[in-house]
């Protein structure tokens, strides 16, 4: 199984500004120290050796994560996604580039919740406009379909939901129940967030991925902590809402519905998880800030590991792929 991150930013898409790109280019030139490169490929090989924040960016699309069970070819394929944030648009474009418009594909989309940043990519998801494609949109909110329809209703968008050409079905799930969907064992879990959100535990052939975004942890109940430890238990990968520092999450941003890197480390350590991915980055954070948080989180994990196996820490970025 492979997890591929198409959108990793919280709340609102962001883009690098011209000044930020210029700053990165200047940094790369300084680090090159006058070296010359014979072609683009050689320059890109060199760029891959530079610090991530110099040569790349964490990206700015909102939540969308693909779980790939088998690499797709040109034939029809079943795709599995978590959330339909703005990262859904480049995902859809990549699918079209791979298959062309005439191959009927199936898309299983598991929705954490219908807040705007988690559905905003859908009107720009080209496969939804193409007859022959099948979309199965899963979630625990009773008003999920209404949220999708409303964002495409006048005057918000020029193409009404009813004009979409694909076969689209909304399927309501119950938290705590186990489902077998698209080759995965799927268990949703209720999370604390305005209007509720749901995390998903995906299991297949001994591998476990947990998608847990937009989830606040109040830290006032050992039972609540233990319930998430069970949800994360033994996971190979935990995709975790680490939008704020702990101090912010329990003070000025209390009840905003998000969590912190520190709580992510604690829950993963208690659960014996193997890889924690910091996700749903605060949109005001620049690349350097996210890299700093990633480094601090690795340090925290090392400080608190004791005799347990190492928990791998990554900050998600648009384009990140993790093989399990």
């Amino acid at each position: 199984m492979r997890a591929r991150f198409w959108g990793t930013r919280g709340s609102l898409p962001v883009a690098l500004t011209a000044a930020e790109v210029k700053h990165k280019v200047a940094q790369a030139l300084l680090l090159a120290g006058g070296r010359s490169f014979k072609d683009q490929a050689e320059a890109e090989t060199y760029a891959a050796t530079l610090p991530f924040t110099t040569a790349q960016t964490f990206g700015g699309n909102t939540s969308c994560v693909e779980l790939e069970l088998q690499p797709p070819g040109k034939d029809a394929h079943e795709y599995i996604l978590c959330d339909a944030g703005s990262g859904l648009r480049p995902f859809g474009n990549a699918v079209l580039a791979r298959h062309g418009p005439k191959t009927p594909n199936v898309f299983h989309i598991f929705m954490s919740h219908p807040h705007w940043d988690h559905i905003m990519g859908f009107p720009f998801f080209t496969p939804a406009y193409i007859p022959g494609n099948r979309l199965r949109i899963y979630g625990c909110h009773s008003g999920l379909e209404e949220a999708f329809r409303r964002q495409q209703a006048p005057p918000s968008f020029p193409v009404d939901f009813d004009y979409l050409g694909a076969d689209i079905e909304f399927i309501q799930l119950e938290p705590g129940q186990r489902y077998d969907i698209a080759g995965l064992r799927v268990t949703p879990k209720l999370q604390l967030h305005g209007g509720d959100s749901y995390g998903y535990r995906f299991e297949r052939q001994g591998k476990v991925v947990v998608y847990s975004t937009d989830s606040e942890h109040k830290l006032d109940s050992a039972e609540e902590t233990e319930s998430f430890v069970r949800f994360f238990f033994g996971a190979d990968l935990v995709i975790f809402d680490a939008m704020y520092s702990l101090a912010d999450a329990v003070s000025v941003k209390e009840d905003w519905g998000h969590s912190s890197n520190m709580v992510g480390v604690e829950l993963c350590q208690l659960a014996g998880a193997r890889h924690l991915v910091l996700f749903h980055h605060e949109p005001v954070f620049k690349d350097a800030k996210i890299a700093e948080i990633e480094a601090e989180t690795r340090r925290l994990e090392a400080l608190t590991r004791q005799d347990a196996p190492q928990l791998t820490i990554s900050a998600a970025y648009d384009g990140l792929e993790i093989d399990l």
Partner: protein
Amino acid sequence: MELNAAQKNNIVVLAPRGRIDHLNADAFGKAVAPHVEACNKDGPRLLFDLSSLEYISSAGLRILMLASKRAIPAGGRIGVAAPTALVREILEISRFDLVFPVFDTVNAGLASFADPAAGH
């Protein structure tokens, strides 16, 4: 986790010992509650001596945040002192070092809190 309390002039020094995690944070909160309640503009200042604290989790830090949120608007003063290297890093990574003053030693905390010119 144990909590020792001692009063030095107008400063209460609370010294937790051991580890504070999600399993005993509630007990820690109950133990400090009376001292937090009394920490206002007319009451004693509150200094946490962290020299014997081996570890504090997010649930434990939340108790310190609740103490700060209750005492400071009431005119009280709260600080922490002498954290071990590990706990100091936890305070920094969690950004709790921005929530209240972190003194290198208990004496430095006592001196600062005893100084009437330091204000609130």
